[in-house]
C-alpha cells in the first residue's frame, strides 16, 4: 500500500518536474522593489515591452512594503533567496549592500554610458570607481504656481530673486491668495523644498557640493548661508499659522486654489494633476541676478542593481541594459510624471508640467541634494539637522548664521574630509 502511494507520488513529481522543464527554457528574473505603487506600470507596460524584445526572458515584479523593504531584502540576501534584480535606494543603503558583496559591479554594463556622473553618484563607491546600480529616476525641485492666479494679477513668471519677491509682494497686497504654500511643522518641507530647492543657485550646484565633501568649503561660507538668508525672507509670505502647517496642509492649500506658489518637488505632479482645478505652471528656483547660471536640484532617487548571487546574471544584465536604454526611460517617465529618467537621451513626455520641469535640464546645471552623499552618514546627522535648522530659520527663531554654524559644528564633530 505504502509502496504504491510512494510510487504514485514519485511518478507525479517526475511528471510535474518534466512539465517544469518545458517552461525552464525561459529564464525568469525576479525584481525586488519597494515601489508597490508601480506594480501596474511594471506589469502592464514595462515588462511586456521588454519581453516582446527579449523572448526567452520572463520578468516578475515582486514588491514589498516600503517600510519593510530594507529589512526584508537584507534577510533574503542573507538567506540566498533574493530576486535577481534589486531596486536600489540611493547612497549609503545600497553602498552597504555593495560592500557586503550583495550587489554586483556594473561599471562595465553596456548602457551605463547613457548616464552622467551626477546621475551615477548615488550608486558609486566614494572614490567613484565602481558603479553598482543603473539609475532609473530622479526628482527635480522648483516652484509650481497657479497660472490662473498669475494671469489674474498680471504677474510674469519670475526668473530672478528680485522678480520673485516682487511677485510675492503683489500677491500679498492683493490678498486673494496666500503667496506661498509652505509650512514648517513637518520640518522636511523647509529643508527639502526650501533649502535644497533654492540652495544650488548659491553654492553653484556640484561645485559647492563636492567642495563641501572635500572640506574646501564650509557650511558657514557665504554661499551656504545665503540660502538660509533667503528662507528667512519667506516668512511674511507664508499662510497664517504656517508654524503648525503640515505637508498635506500645504498640498491642499495649493490644490484648493488658496495659495499661488508652491515650493515643490516634481513628484507632486501626478497628484496635483488629479486634484487641482486650475492651470498650473512651474519655474526653476530664481537666480540671484539676471544672467546668472541657474542650478537645479535633480535628485537621484531610484536605481536598479544586480544580485551578485543571481544564477541568471546574463539575462539580468540584458534586462539592466534595457533599463539603461531610452526605450525604458520613455515608458517609465510617461507612466510616472514627475519621476524623470536620468538618461542622457532626452525623453519625450506628454505631461506639460513634467515637460516644463525637465526642460530646465537644458539650461540649468543639475546637482543632487548636498546632505546625502557621504555627508549624510554620521551623528548628528546633517540631513536631519538641516530639516530642523531650516524650519528654525523660517520660523525666525534662529538667525541664518547661527543655523549654518550649528550645522558645520555638527558636521565637524564626525566628518574629517580626506586631504
Amino acid at each position, binding site marked *: 500500500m505504502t509502496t504504491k502511494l510512494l510510487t504514485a507520488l514519485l511518478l507525479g513529481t517526475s511528471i510535474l518536474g518534466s512539465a517544469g522543464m518545458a517552461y525552464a527554457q525561459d529564464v525568469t528574473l525576479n525584481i525586488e522593489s519597494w515601489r508597490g505603487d508601480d506594480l501596474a506600470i511594471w506589469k502592464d507596460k514595462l515588462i511586456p515591452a521588454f519581453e516582446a524584445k527579449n523572448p526567452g526572458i520572463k520578468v516578475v515584479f515582486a514588491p514589498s512594503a516600503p517600510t519593510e523593504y530594507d529589512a526584508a531584502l537584507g534577510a533574503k540576501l542573507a538567506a540566498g533567496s533574493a530576486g535577481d534584480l534589486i531596486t536600489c535606494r540611493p547612497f549609503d543603503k545600497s553602498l552597504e549592500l555593495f560592500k557586503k558583496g550583495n550587489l554586483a559591479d556594473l561599471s562595465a554594463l553596456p548602457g551605463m554610458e547613457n548616464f552622467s556622473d551626477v546621475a551615477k553618484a548615488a550608486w558609486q563607491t566614494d572614490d567613484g570607481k565602481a558603479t553598482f546600480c543603473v539609475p532609473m529616476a530622479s526628482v527635480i525641485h522648483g516652484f509650481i504656481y497657479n497660472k490662473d492666479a498669475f494671469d489674474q494679477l498680471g504677474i510674469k513668471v519670475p526668473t530672478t530673486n528680485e522678480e520673485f519677491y516682487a511677485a510675492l509682494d503683489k500677491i500679498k497686497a492683493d490678498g486673494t491668495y496666500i503667496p506661498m504654500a509652505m509650512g514648517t511643522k513637518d520640518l522636511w518641507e523647509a529643508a527639502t523644498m526650501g533649502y535644497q530647492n533654492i540652495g544650488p543657485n548659491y553654492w553653484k550646484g556640484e561645485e559647492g557640493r563636492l567642495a563641501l565633501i572635500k572640506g574646501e568649503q564650509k557650511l558657514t561660507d557665504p554661499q551656504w548661508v545665503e540660502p538660509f538668508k533667503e528662507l528667512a525672507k519667506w516668512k511674511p509670505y507664508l499662510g497664517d499659522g504656517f*508654524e*503648525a502647517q503640515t505637508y498635506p*496642509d500645504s498640498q491642499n492649500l495649493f490644490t484648493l486654489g488658496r495659495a499661488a506658489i508652491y515650493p515643490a518637488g516634481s513628484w507632486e505632479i501626478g497628484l496635483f494633476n488629479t486634484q487641482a482645478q486650475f492651470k498650473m505652471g512651474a519655474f526653476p528656483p530664481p537666480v540671484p541676478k539676471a544672467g546668472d547660471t541657474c542650478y537645479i536640484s535633480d535628485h537621484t532617487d531610484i536605481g536598479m542593481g544586480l544580485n551578485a548571487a543571481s544564477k541568471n546574471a546574463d539575462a539580468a544584465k540584458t534586462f539592466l541594459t534595457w533599463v539603461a536604454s531610452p526605450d525604458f526611460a520613455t515608458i517609465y517617465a510617461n507612466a510616472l510624471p514627475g519621476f524623470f529618467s536620468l538618461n542622457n537621451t532626452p525623453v519625450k513626455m506628454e505631461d506639460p508640467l513634467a515637460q516644463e520641469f525637465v526642460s530646465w535640464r537644458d539650461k540649468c546645471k543639475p546637482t543632487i541634494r548636498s546632505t546625502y552623499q557621504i555627508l*549624510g552618514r554620521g551623528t548628528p546627522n546633517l540631513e536631519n539637522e538641516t530639516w530642523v535648522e531650516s*524650519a528654525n530659520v523660517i520660523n525666525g527663531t534662529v538667525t541664518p548664521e547661527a543655523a549654518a554654524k550649528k550645522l558645520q559644528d555638527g558636521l565637524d564633530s564626525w566628518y574629517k574630509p580626506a586631504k
Partner: protein
Amino acid sequence: MAAAPKRPFRWHIVVFLAPAVLVYTAIMILPLAGTLQLSLFRNIDQVQVFVGFENFRRLFGDPNWSVSFWNALRNNVWFFIIHMLVQNPIGVLLAALLSSPRLRFSAFYRTAIFVPTILSFVIVGFAWKLILSPIWGVAPNLMDLVGLKSLFTPWLGKEEYALTTLSLISVWQFVGIPMMLIYAALLSIPDEVIEAAECDGITGMAQFWKIKLPLILPSIGIISILTFVGNFNAFDLIYTAQGALAGPNYSTDILGTFLYRAFFGFQLQVGDPNMGAAIATMMFLIILGGVCVYLFLVQTRLRRYQF
C-alpha cells in the same frame, strides 16, 4: 537532643510560582538585562565589542549627545510637572464632584470623561492636530465666536508652547484614570466616618479637606507614581503629533523620542542600538530612582486607616 523532624520540601510553592516567574522573566527581566548588556558594548566593524561605560561617557561627555539628553530630560520633567499640577488635581476634583450624591447623570459623565483614555494615541494625536490646525481646525473659529481670536496661535508649531500644549492634550486623554481611582477611594470611605464627622459639625468643603482628603492620600500617592512612570516612558503622543524629530527645534523632545531616534535611527541617520540602549538604561535608572524615592520616603510616611 533529637534533631527536629525534617520538614518535606514544599514543592507546590515552586510549582505555583513557576508560571508567573517564568513569564515575567522571559518578557521583562531578560529584555531588561539584554538592554543593560547592550549598553556596555559597541559595534566595531560588525562585531560587538565590550567597551565598559564608553557609551555613557559619550552620552554625558559629548555635547552632541549630552545637549540632546539634558534637553529631553528637562522637557520630560516639564511634561511630568504639567501632569501633576493639572491632571491629578482635576482628577481629584472630578472624582469629588462625581461622588456627590446630588449629581445627576453621574454615570454618563464618568463614562464620557473616561472614554479618551481608551482611545489610541494615533487618533488622539491626529484629532488634536486637526482641532488646533490654523487652517482647517475648529479652534480658531470657536475662539473667534467668543472674541478671543487674537489669542490663537499655532500652538503645536511654536517652540514656547508646543510641549505645554502636548502635555495638556495628554492630560485631556488621561484625566479619567486618576478620576476613577480617586472615585473608587472616595466610595470606599465608610459612611460611619462621614456621619461621625457630620455629628462633629464638619460638613461641606471642610469635610472634604479634613476627612476625605487624608483618607484618599494613599490613592493620590499611587496615582503620582503611575503618572511619573507613565510620563517618563511616554513616546506615542509626541511621535504621532510632532514626528520623530519632536519639532519645532526639539522643543517637544522627551526621553522616549530621543531613545527612538538613537536606537532606530531616522531618515538618513542610521540607528545606533548601543547608544539607544544606554539611553534606555538611563530612563530605567531615572524611573527606578523616582519609584524608590516614593517607596522609601513617601509611602512609609503615609498614614493608613483601617476600618
